[in-house]
């Protein structure tokens, strides 16, 4: 164990712990735009700079390992001014369109601008113009909102292992791009969208839907494969407008294209809205009331059971339905109908 002092408070941490993580354990908050506990240390945004006794200049806490007897200071007027200037510099080359940005209210850069009260900007000059529209159907890429924190590049490499994007060009022309600046063509997992601290990367399916106001969050489980990822449904009234996942879930907040973006079916117009029955054999399916449907089911089940016995009836339960529904379904067939003719699609 290593013992160090941060803001006058002592803490012991295990070897390899960074100053940033040690401070976090003491619940000392530091601003950051590029730190991500699920990724390797990076030190890109320079906002987590701290003063360490014996080191002449501030260093980034997220890339500095804690050492024995280190004395760290995370707050001073000097650090405050440096950090404020960094955010100001970022904003000097950032479109001021929070009004219509999908990420407004959920944007780290906007939050920092608010915190540092950055209404005016001392740095005027040329701004980057990235008006190229990426035609991929999932990820809206507004590169003029990109702050080059590298989170998307890192998650695509370190977690997804796809390496669909990287830094291109140098200096003022630096940009994040797929190879040869083509349209994004990848697994569209959207980890990059989830991890982006600004409005540079958003979901195309989110556009024009609810942002913050009246958005309700519900913790539930994805309805696709057996991974059982934890998802948060963002809903406005009775409409699902976005799906996200928390990083403290067993899936660490990672999702796939289906789980993250494939939710349109829930609110599709062609959802069945009333029971349908065939009033004549060979006739069309017609809308009916629940009473009518239930009566028909009960009379047909009873007559088949009476005439041919319970084993002339069978049920196919569903690997898509809940445990409770499946429990009730098999109980219905066994206890009420009186047959073990009950199965589901585990074999398909």
């Amino acid at each position, binding site marked *: 164990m290593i013992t160090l002092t941060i803001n006058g408070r002592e803490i012991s941490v295990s070897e390899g712990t960074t100053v940033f993580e040690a401070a976090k354990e003491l619940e000392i908050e530091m601003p950051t735009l590029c730190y991500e506990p699920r990724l390797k240390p990076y030190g890109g945004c320079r906002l987590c700079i701290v003063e360490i006794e014996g080191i002449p200049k501030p260093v980034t806490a997220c890339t500095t390992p804690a050492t024995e007897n280190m004395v760290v200071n995370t707050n001073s007027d000097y650090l405050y001014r440096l950090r404020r200037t960094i955010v100001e510099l970022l904003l000097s080359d950032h479109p001021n369109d929070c009004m219509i940005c999908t990420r407004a209210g959920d944007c780290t850069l906007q939050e920092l601008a608010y915190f540092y009260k950055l209404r005016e900007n001392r740095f005027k000059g040329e701004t980057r113009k990235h008006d190229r529209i990426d035609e991929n159907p*999932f990820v809206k890429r507004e590169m003029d909102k990109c702050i080059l924190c590298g989170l998307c590049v890192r998650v695509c490499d370190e977690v997804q292992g796809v390496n669909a994007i990287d830094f291109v060009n140098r200096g003022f022309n630096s940009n994040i791009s797929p190879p040869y600046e083509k349209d994004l063509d990848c697994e569209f997992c959207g980890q990059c969208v989830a991890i982006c601290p600004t409005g540079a990367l958003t979901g195309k399916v989110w556009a024009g839907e609810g942002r913050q106001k009246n958005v309700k969050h519900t913790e539930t*489980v994805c309805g696709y494969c057996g*991974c059982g990822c934890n998802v948060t449904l963002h809903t406005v009234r009775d409409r699902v407008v976005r799906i996200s996942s928390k990083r403290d879930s067993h899936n660490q907040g990672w999702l796939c294209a289906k789980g993250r973006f494939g939710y349109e079916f829930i609110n599709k117009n062609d*959802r069945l809205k009333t029971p349908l029955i*065939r009033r004549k054999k060979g006739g069309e399916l017609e809308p009916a009331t629940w009473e009518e449907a239930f009566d028909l089911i009960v009379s047909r089940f009873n007559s088949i059971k009476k005439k041919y016995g319970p084993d002339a009836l069978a049920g196919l339960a569903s690997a898509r339905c809940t445990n409770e529904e499946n429990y009730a379904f098999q109980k219905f067939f066994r206890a009420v109908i009186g047959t073990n003719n*009950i199965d589901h699609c585990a074999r398909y």
Partner: protein
Amino acid sequence: MTNSVEEIADTDALFVIGSNTTENHPIIGLRMKEAVRNGAKLIIADPRKIPLVKFAHLWLQQKPGTDATLINCIMHVILKEGLEDTKFIKERTEGITAFRKSLKSFTPAHGEKVTGVPKKDIIEAARIFASADKAGIYYTMGITQHSMGTNNVLALADLAMLTGNVGKESSGVNPLRGQNNVQGCCDMGCSPNVFPGYQKVTDEKVRSKFEEAWGRELPTEIGLAATEMTDAMIDGKLKGLYVMGENPILSEPNMNHALKAFKSLDFLIVQDLFLTETAELADVVLPAASFAEKEGTFTNTERRVQRVRKAIKSPGEAMDDLSIISHITLRMGYNPVLENLSALGYLVPDKMEADKYITTPEQAFLEAGLLWPEIRGMTYQRLRNGGLQWPCPSHSHSGTRFLFQDSFPVGKAKFVAIPGLPSKEVPDDDYPFILTTGRILFQYHTGTMTRRSKALEAVAPEPFIEINKSDAEKLGIVESALLTVTSRRGQIDVKAKIGDRVGPGVVFIPFHYKEAAANLLTNDALDPVCKIAEAKVCAVKIEKAA
């Protein structure tokens, strides 16, 4: 899964067989990549060059349908080179002597002949797997959807036992379940032979427990498996079918046969979100609620029971499945709420008001727990943050990350000798290609959900057939050419996708697309034990479409 998903990251060797993990279980795929980054050795056995191969140390491209032989040959090498875990074998298994004999003929040379995998790779796979401290096996339908699917799974269990890779962390025999709640559906007894918790319907003691709880006499015979129901419909033995949230017309092998079967029913109920291909044939279609519209639990592939919560109201008059079943149950003259619950202090509704008989999800969950001890320790309250993994027998139990730590339910585990049987339909002069089927990343099952997503549909809009470059050259086929694919059961037209993802003589078609349904071609030959159909191997011929 015997083990947990999280443990994969700490495995020393992974054997992924018959699982296109990154496309079908993307988040489990991430853990596998993490394991490789942490230094684990990844062995993949798959007839296709799946995306995960990029991360593999060794890729064994076996011919479809030769898995058991491949696994047997790997075990032959392990025993020959003395790499087995003798301590584990002695303490926790039985039947090794006979088993050893059964593997005698499964030499690497024999393996190469049958599976097409070079013998040096078989030997290397054996060495990597057996010399790892913690090694895990991961498989899906590539192993099971065969006429000898049960054998394939048993062979994998043998491999885990032989190397002592069961009952410890980051190892195990791990089927990755394909659907959000297929694990739970099995757990809840939606199978013709077992009650909830895999308790046999033929066991008198078990049956009387359920008879007492449910207050009805229960059937004693094992029922029909889904794959057997189709024939029973055609034979006229099965007259009425109630399908809840499935689209078997598109997902069942030999679709023409299934279609004929469903049309011969006297009465068909389909309960779903949409008017699916199956619902179109129904006499009654009931509008159900999506997962976003109801309360309950799903159980994922690692036995983790998690809460599903209602976020929105259902459209129109759509109703959640549990309420629908309760209504029907009630109208058939049975009280759907178990009265025993009140004895345990749980709320049971007043008998006077019929509407209150509708079972709540929580009541149904607790009732299942009364009858299946492995989840008795779970309550909705305890599941609220991240869920619990069964077995969780008491309220103080924190769930089980991996199974069989100290013992197997049967005492000592038995080695089972597995023969190297061929698939029911192998290529011949008339049908020279092996067709294998599966899913792709951007679509899901019969597409009822994913094909309604504009974005997913935009990147994966149409069916295709993967064919090897050399075969395409021989047949004079160019990229995207329309091909007619014919099996003994059906015919479809589908566009060619030429490359090296499949080996020569093998083709692959995803089964999501109704406009060229792969299951028109597939074989419905069944595994004699578990009644799974052989969707992964059949013989087809390929011609340029007229």
